[in-house]
């Protein structure tokens, strides 16, 4: 029971972090059809910017400034890079962002070095909020939860209740029509791309000190974010939210349950011995393969429900 409660909390925190990263990507992907490989790089840049800013003027200004910087970079990439490449089709865009991701990683390595930087949780939040069955729950995690919940609310309200949001939604499904009605669709694209990058930057600001800020952080977060976006479905913020929380919980609980296929078979009265075919595979416990489960689910959903959990159209 205690393990369950603590794992639930951990899974929620991790899931919400994933959501912050994935929400921006899902907006960009569903609107512009660009699978942005450089998205996790914005996450990394957010963390590094926040570290550098927090050294000089503290964490709280960094919380605002770092995402804005990331947003500006995103806008620049869209206006001067993606828009030109866009004419040559999706493959060109994909390769463009892929190259960009590698370049950003190298630039980060050259500017901040290969070693992790000492980006720490602000002192104000560096205390255990409560203790549950002997495990402390750091206040910072509650803060992360709060920020991501706020963000979810803000995006959702913004997209469904404001004029800008409605125009974005219109441009998302019917770009030509929106354009004919006099809306500047390219500018909307820039805005969405910048907003998405800023969100990733924000995730970096609060995720960088929760995990470790180092040049490989983009590389390790990248794949899982794609899984979330595809799993959640194109064009659905709710689907993205559910997928994020689900992935967070799956990865957390996969660690906790020490079961293998052999145990499952034993329930049906079938004993696995060392002479059983595939005994090696059957005896692998869940924690050993936990990190692979999201990718397994990605494969399954692409086979059985290609539009994702709550997707409104096919990929």
């Amino acid at each position: 029971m205690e393990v369950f409660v603590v794992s639930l909390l951990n899974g929620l925190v991790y899931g919400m972090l994933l959501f912050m990263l994935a929400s921006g990507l899902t907006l960009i992907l569903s609107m512009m059809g660009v699978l942005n490989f450089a998205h996790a790089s914005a996450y990394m840049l957010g963390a590094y910017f926040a570290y550098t800013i927090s050294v000089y003027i503290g964490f709280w200004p960094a919380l605002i400034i770092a995402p804005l910087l990331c947003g500006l970079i995103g806008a620049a990439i869209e206006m001067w890079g993606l828009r030109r490449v866009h004419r040559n089709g999706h493959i060109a865009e994909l390769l463009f962002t892929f190259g960009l991701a590698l370049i950003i990683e190298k630039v980060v390595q050259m500017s901040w070095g290969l070693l992790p930087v000492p980006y720490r949780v602000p002192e104000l939040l560096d205390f255990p909020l409560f203790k549950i069955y002997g495990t402390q729950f750091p206040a910072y995690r509650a803060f992360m939860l709060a920020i991501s919940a706020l963000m979810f609310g803000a995006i959702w309200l913004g997209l469904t209740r404001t004029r800008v949001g409605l125009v974005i939604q219109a441009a998302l499904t019917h770009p030509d029509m929106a354009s004919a009605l006099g809306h500047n669709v390219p500018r909307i694209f820039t805005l969405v791309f910048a907003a998405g990058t800023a969100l990733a930057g924000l995730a970096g600001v609060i995720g960088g000190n929760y995990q470790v800020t180092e040049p490989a952080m983009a590389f390790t977060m990248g794949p899982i974010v794609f899984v979330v976006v595809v799993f959640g479905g194109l064009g659905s913020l709710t689907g993205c939210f559910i997928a994020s929380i689900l992935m967070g919980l799956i990865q957390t609980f996969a660690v906790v349950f020490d079961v293998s296929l052999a145990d499952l078979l034993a329930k049906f009265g079938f004993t696995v011995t060392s002479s059983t075919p595939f005994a090696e595979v059957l005896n692998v416990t869940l924690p050993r393969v936990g990190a692979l489960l999201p990718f397994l689910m990605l494969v399954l959903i692409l086979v059985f429900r290609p539009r994702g959990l709550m997707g409104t159209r096919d990929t």
Partner: protein
Amino acid sequence: MLQGKWLTAFFGIVLAIACGGHAWAQGTIKVAYTDPLSGPFAQVGDANLKQMQYIIDYINSKGGALGKKFELVPFDNKSQPSDALIALKSATDQNMPFIMQCSGSNIAAALIDGVNKHNDRNPDNRIIYLNCGAVATELTNEQCSFWHFRFDLHVGMKAEVMVRSLPKEVKKVYLINQDYLFGQSVQREVKNYLAKLRPDVQVVGDELIPLGKVKDFSPYITKINASGAQALLTGNWGPDMNLLIKAGVDAGADLRYYTFYAHLAGGPTAIGVGGDNRVLAVMSFGENVAPEIGNKEAEAFAQGFRDKHKFDFSAAGFRTIFEYLQGAVNKAGSVDPTKIALAMEDLTVKDFLGFDTRMRKEDHQIISEYFVGTFKKGVKYDAEGTGLGWATSATILAKDVDQPNTCKMKRPSAS
């Protein structure tokens, strides 16, 4: 058109520099060095490279060997055995007598195999593999090779040191290791020595994690807490080490951490103040060893690195490697790898801290002193500016780590 001219000029200059550099490097003894210099484990390779460069500069200032200077030629292997083999190919193509590799026992296993085959087929262009940190026990037992020399204690020896340093009151331990050759070796050896030396200790959890894939270790900490373990024993390295301890410290888990690699670059930053007096590392060197034993010269040497770079000097073992190379090349009187390999066997070197070390002939495993460091406040040299550093809590002499081996080495026929 103008652009074309510029390009020609540019390549011309590059070519000129490359050729010039090559001509200048003719008289050096080249050591190919391959480790991850990009990807998730790049920090490890990069830290190694900087420390080696510092040591080579020192060795060269002391005359190198046979009047020649050593030169390090880095190759990125992206943590992939296949890329390490490409590095081996380039090294042999350029007739380099040595290839060095530190990180990843799976890569080391591939390299040993590759070097064996190459040396069999090309008796006049052989190469020696200097292993600076791939420590799976098998590499000098079942897989031992005449061409492979290991300059770090293997997992079995480190595990014995770790188990011996467990205090009496610890009765329940939890093991977490990376799911590949090295991690499984740690898992097996630690359990083996626990059974042998501390039968009173109970292993309440034993876990393998995918290498470099876990981003959040909080669930593991929850599980460890629930198991009632008093100590966590782990061979993890790189981000797998740093994230694990960070998660434990953040959750305020009442645990002691017994590690092989918490002292390496990035570790202390990730652990932070919360790890005071909780984290131990079985290590070949710590910056506080020299002042503790009053060795001014060694202290100044480590200090020199710190002044040049922003991180700590942890790789004293690398200096021992180059002192062995210096000694063996001088003794062989040639840069012929076969002669050097023979000269290296049973060579003894007093390392820069003043302890005796020996390259064991039977399995080409170095036997050297080792330390257990505790991460705490109030030491002379703190680690990575955290205010805490590694205080030596135990020193184990070479004669006490000398474990038997099962190596049946195939030696080259006398020629």
